[in-house]
């Protein structure tokens, strides 16, 4: 995939005429206090680039309250996947002046917005996308405004903080950081006051594309298309100069030459790693040379421990990236490759079109800003476990190595001392469960995506759903929560497997069998007579096409049956804790 600077509105609009057949359908409702036709066009047009068929319903102009209160509203019949609630700073300022300087203004706005969300939620189950309010310097108090809690400046900043506090608690609400975007592009580029005055349009025609792009990135993260791994070139990407030629003391990092550039890039990459992005190195170098700065250079921010897979040799980069992919067992489309060399970038694009390869600016000084603007690592979840992801993949590499020393697979599995903990979803596991439903593509029987709010709802429906979260650990460490099963009680006899997901990190460990044993044990202990499974084919889950067949389920009209009384548990090498 070729990634370049943002598209122009004209190109986005040209997309509207293209064929959306076969794209994933997403419904978006836009409620706003300004005119949103451009935004709507841009969202659909940008969606095309991500293979999303975004159908947009716009509420009548400036009719948020009426729309929400109307029981028969088109909004509720439309049943959107997302409701965009876009209120503008311009209108906010107007409201603030009209109410007269009020120290409770921000709080009242949050109460109002929560009320709108609650009202809509009482009619339909949906996700909310809110927008924070870019600061407007009104110069009423000048710089003294910071010392006055009834100033607009104070209230708008407070409102933005309160919005974040709110969405951190409300699993169905998400926030678009319009303030950050406007800071990135500049208010004078973001807003065309002529459009606002004449047509009540908030964003300039150029900026609306950036806003739409961010909206689509958020939507895309919900469809399981998030980036999980960052693959890095070394020479002139992580440091200035060529380690093999210049030597350890002459590469530019820290204070040497333009080393500051690379220090800042490394700090950013380290922060991504802490957030849960897996780092890999892919460099044309002798391995000893390539590793030296990571181990010996005092100014390096990244160390060997930070890198899950380190590949330095003289083979083609696309072959090395294929190797990295095979070790990590994640899709090519979840990988980003950064390299200063246009030739290498093009080679990777040619051989691995699914890998995202940003076209970097010529001057390294601009790399970081450029990469930030692309917003490559949008996500719709963050769990504690994410922090340790590199560690998980590193211990996986150790396991792979150990497996080679055993002649039989059984001996190897027995040597791992695997222990699994099985529990119903609880408040601690729900974020990770939701994340697995959102991100797992391969070992996923029905690929039903559930938000945290939806998972919570299922947990509360005890008469209808039974949930199992599986944690697997072995002598190399814990894999964390790697398996999810949601069973639906169809009737007093039948259990339907609504969701069966397993992380590909634990393939070939006998975990599937262990999970099936759990399903059947539950069924038997609760007097269910049959278990019913379904395989819904996607582009990526071919691996589990014959999952039910292989376990002896019997096919009847596209569903798979198992008579519980026939089931004999099969023991593997996993002990239940």
């Amino acid at each position, binding site marked *: 995939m070729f990634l370049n600077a943002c598209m122009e*509105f*004209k190109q986005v*609009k*040209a997309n509207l*005429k293209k064929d959306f057949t076969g794209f994933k359908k997403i419904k978006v409702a836009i409620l706003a206090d300004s005119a949103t*036709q*451009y935004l709507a*066009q841009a969202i659909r047009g940008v969606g095309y680039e991500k293979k999303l068929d975004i159908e947009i319903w716009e509420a009548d102009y400036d009719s948020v309250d009426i729309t929400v209160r109307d029981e028969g509203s088109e909004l509720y019949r439309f049943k959107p996947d997302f409701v965009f609630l876009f209120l503008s700073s311009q209108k906010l300022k107007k409201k603030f002046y009209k109410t007269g300087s009020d120290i409770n203004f921000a709080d009242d706005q949050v109460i109002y917005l929560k009320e709108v969300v609650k009202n809509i939620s009482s009619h339909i189950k949906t996700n909310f996308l809110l927008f924070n309010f870019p600061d407007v310097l009104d110069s009423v108090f000048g710089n003294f405004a910071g010392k006055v809690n009834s100033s607009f400046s104070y209230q708008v900043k407070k409102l933005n903080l309160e919005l974040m506090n709110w969405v951190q608690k409300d699993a169905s609400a998400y926030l678009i950081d319009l303030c950050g975007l406007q800071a990135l592009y500049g208010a004078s580029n973001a807003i*065309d006051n*002529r*459009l606002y*005055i*004449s*047509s009540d*349009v908030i964003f*300039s*025609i*150029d900026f609306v594309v950036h806003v739409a792009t961010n909206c689509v990135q958020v939507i895309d993260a919900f469809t399981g298309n998030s980036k999980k791994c960052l693959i890095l070139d070394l020479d002139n990407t992580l440091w200035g100069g060529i380690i093999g030629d210049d030597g350890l003391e002459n590469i530019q990092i820290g204070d040497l030459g333009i080393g500051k550039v690379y220090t800042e890039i490394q700090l950013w990459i380290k922060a991504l790693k802490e957030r849960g992005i897996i780092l890999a190195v892919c460099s044309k170098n002798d391995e000893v040379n390539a590793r030296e700065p990571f181990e010996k250079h005092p100014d390096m921010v990244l160390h060997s421990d930070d890198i899950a897979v380190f590949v330095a040799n003289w083979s083609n980069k696309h072959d090395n990236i294929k190797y990295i992919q095979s070790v990590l067992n994640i899709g090519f489309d979840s990988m980003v490759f950064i390299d200063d060399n246009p030739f290498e970038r093009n080679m990777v694009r040619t051989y691995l079109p699914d890998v995202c390869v940003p076209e970097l600016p010529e001057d390294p000084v601009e790399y970081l800003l450029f990469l930030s603007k692309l917003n490559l690592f949008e996500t719709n979840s963050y769990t504690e476990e994410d922090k340790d992801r590199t560690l998980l993949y590193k211990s996986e590499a150790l396991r792979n190595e150990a497996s080679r020393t055993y002649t039989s697979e059984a001996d190897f599995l027995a040597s791992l001392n695997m222990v699994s903990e099985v529990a119903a979803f609880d408040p601690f596991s729900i974020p990770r469960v939701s994340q697995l439903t959102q991100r797992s593509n391969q070992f996923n029987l029905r690929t039903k995506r559930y938000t945290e709010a939806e998972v919570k709802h299922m947990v509360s429906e005890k008469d209808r759903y039974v949930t199992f979260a599986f944690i697997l650990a072995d002598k190399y460490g814990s894999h964390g929560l790697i398996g999810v099963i949601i069973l639906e009680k169809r009737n007093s006899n039948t259990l339907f497997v609504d969701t069966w997901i397993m992380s590909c990190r634990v393939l070939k460990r006998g975990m599937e069998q262990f999970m099936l044993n759990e399903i059947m044990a539950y069924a038997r202990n609760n007097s269910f007579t049959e278990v019913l499974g379904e395989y819904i084919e996607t582009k990526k889950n071919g691996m589990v096409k014959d999952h039910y067949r292989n376990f002896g389920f019997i096919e009847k009209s596209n569903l798979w049956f198992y008579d519980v009384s026939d089931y004999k548990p099969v023991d593997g090498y996993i002990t239940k804790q």
Partner: protein
Amino acid sequence: MNTAEILTECNKIFIDQLDNSSIVLKQETTASDVEEWDSLTHIQLIVAIEKHFKIRFTTAEIQGFKNVGEMCVAIEKKTNK
């Protein structure tokens, strides 16, 4: 640049922005003569013209052009300043 040259440049911009190569602008052309030219695309055209000629229209001008000719005259004034 004279009005005729400006008209030719504008014609190119219209074709490009509205993705319709059959557009032929004349001095007396109005929005109702061009199918894709509505209040939404009007803004798009104005912004493209501003960028091309490195000028800026006032809000009143944007709303007030009666036809392409008036717009070209305004462009001519601004570019010759």
